[in-house]
């Protein structure tokens, strides 16, 4: 046996080395397609790069400039409203839908499959559909209501700042509900029926069963689902870009859409990167909150605080 083969066989049998080898492809993918772009984006935010010119380090200048920009603050405000309202509604409706689907209803699998539709349709297509639904001249909603004699003028869904915000939030909710509902449904199904039987024998009503059996056992899933839901909503881009372009008067501009508008069509790469970077603290906060929430619940051990 030569020393070469013994080294090779030792390497082949070394779990640590093998682990690294097997880890390499995934790690390389993550570094190339995730870490590097993210790092580059963060770096660009501290430079004065434009599309045609590589920049130099300017420290916090971009951020200072954004702080003085009314449109930036409007987009921050819009993003918070959008995320808060859409996430809350998605959670409420999603949980309700999950509870309904968890019962024995006719055509159960068919109904569950149908419910996934909004999630399956490419976002841009559903955004275009909503664009038509909200059209100032051709809205199907306005048309129906006018035909029914309930209103006399077409609703200016996307022209009025408040209505425009509500309209894009509604579109986001429609699209996001399936994710919440299906995930929570999966969680519901892990709850053993015997717990409900025991609770019923103890005389618990349906609200008490939900409050003291369903809710505590579902909490870990809720934390994960809502973390993802908040992140998806906070970083939404396509719906806004197709339906309003951030208009009217920037009333629907989110941080993500404004970052794109300034970085690419506007050519101010550094400013756009800074704007996108400004989203990171908020996202980190959302992740940390849920992470600590998860720790407390000790869900990995399958235990609970109760």
């Amino acid at each position, binding site marked *: 046996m030569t020393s070469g083969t013994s080294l090779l066989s030792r390497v082949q049998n070394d779990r640590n080395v093998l682990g690294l080898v097997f880890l390499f492809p995934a790690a390389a993918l993550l570094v190339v397609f995730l870490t590097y772009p993210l790092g580059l984006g963060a770096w660009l935010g501290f430079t004065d790069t434009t599309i045609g010119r590589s920049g130099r380090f300017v420290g916090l200048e971009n951020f200072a400039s954004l702080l003085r920009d009314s449109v930036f603050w409007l987009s921050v405000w819009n993003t918070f409203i959008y995320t808060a309202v859409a996430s809350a509604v998605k959670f409420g409706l999603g949980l309700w839908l999950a509870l309904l689907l968890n019962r024995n209803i006719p055509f159960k699998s068919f109904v569950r499959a149908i419910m996934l539709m909004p999630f399956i349709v490419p976002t841009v297509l559903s955004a275009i559909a909503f664009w038509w639904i909200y059209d100032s001249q051709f809205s199907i909603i306005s048309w129906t209501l006018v035909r029914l004699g309930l209103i006399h003028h077409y609703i200016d869904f996307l*022209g009025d700042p408040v209505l425009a915000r509500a309209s894009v939030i509604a579109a986001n909710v429609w699209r996001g509900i399936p994710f919440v509902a299906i995930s929570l449904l999966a969680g519901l199904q892990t709850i053993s029926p015997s717990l409900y039987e025991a609770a019923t024998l103890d005389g618990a009503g349906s609200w008490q069963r939900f409050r003291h059996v369903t809710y505590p056992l579902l909490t870990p899933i809720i934390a994960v689902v809502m973390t993802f839901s908040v992140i998806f909503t906070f970083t939404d881009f396509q719906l806004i870009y197709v339906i309003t372009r951030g208009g009217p008067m920037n009333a629907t501009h989110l941080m993500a859409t404004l970052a794109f508008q300034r970085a690419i069509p*506007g050519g101010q790469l550094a400013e756009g990167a800074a704007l996108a970077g400004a989203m990171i603290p908020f996202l980190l906060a959302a992740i940390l909150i849920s992470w600590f929430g998860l720790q407390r619940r000790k869900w990995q051990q399958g235990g609970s605080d109760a």
Partner: protein
Amino acid sequence: MSKMTRREFVKTTAGAAAGVSLGASLVGRAEAADLSYKPEKGAKLRVLRWKRFVQGDEDMWMQNTKKFTEKTGVEVRVDNEGWEDVRPKAAVAANVGSGPDIIIGWYDDPFQYPDKLLDLSELASYLGKKYGGWYDICRRYGTRDGKWIALPLGVVGNLLTYRESHVRAAGFDGVPGDLPGFLKLCQALKAKGTPAGMALGHAVGDGNDWVHWLVWTHGGKMVDDKGNVALNSPETIAALEYAKELYPTFVPGTLSWLDPNNNKAFIDGQVSLTNNGISIYYAAKNSTDPKLKEMAADINHAHFPIGPVGRRTEFNQITSAMLFKHSKYPNAAREYLRFMWEWDQYDAWMKAAIGYVSGPLKAFEKSTVWTVDPKHTIFRDLAGGMLDNGYAYKLGAASAAVMADCVLIDMVAEAATGAQTPKAAVERAEKRALRYYKI
């Protein structure tokens, strides 16, 4: 023309002698002193261009490209994409240094990355000499420090499109050429239930086109000729006061309009006057629907009214070809551009798009596309009556950033709807502009 003796170029005659089979009929009238470039061996080109609304444009462009390939053997792949997708893609290509050889982009794109573009001065001066000279506006959008960094393809006209019968019913023979008259017309149209409508949402094309005209024709401007932000002026306030009176005459919902909205509303008969390219007329005229054909007969075009400045101050979408330094076959690319800009190809293309794009060179005014239908004629010399979005200073990163941020559209929308007073709206816009025109 001493540069023409450089080795990479050959006289067209030599090129023709080198075995170009289609020869005479294609090269056409001014064969004699032509410039021509000899494509590199095995050259292949990738071209990215916009397409929009008018099918004839895309078809004829592809047909001309095919002709080029037959003539030179150079394979050309043309990607026709939605017009707003070209900008980001061009930006990416410029930044990473690879991608299409030629990109036909918009507005001041070339000024965002002038260092990434090849000099086209020789080709531009040849075309200018041959075809009656470039319009000044094309020179502004094509040159930087006296060097041609892009080859203007033309101007996508944006004028007033209106229904003749509705304007007559409102008591006018045509669209008045002055601001008070235009306002009266819009008020009368509204009273008759056949309102006007112009986009005030983030409509990158139609929205920008009319609000720039509005500010300029009152004498307002974003920057003075030294590059200082000069928006906050009595002239701009006057423009916003005018917008405040004009907006209530519009069909409801214009605040949400993006570029396609006015086309749809006009074709549906809900709007009787709007600002647009020739594409509405084109769609109606080429429709198989008899009702739309009837509407086409009733559609006409007019210039925007002229305000206190006393001259045309229109704003149209201008489009230019850029040749990138990362191209491996710059001579093939130059030859492609030359071929497409020559009369035979350009004229056929203009005709196929019934004048959707007005020529960048004065001789193209002679095309019969402008006389075959009197409703085309007004689009003939649009490049002659427009200003650029950097007016009254240079085009550059700041002008591009300010327009992409919809600063003027938002300003007019805020004032017109009463969300802000004209004074507050202009101050807000000024602050936004100052973030880019800071140096």
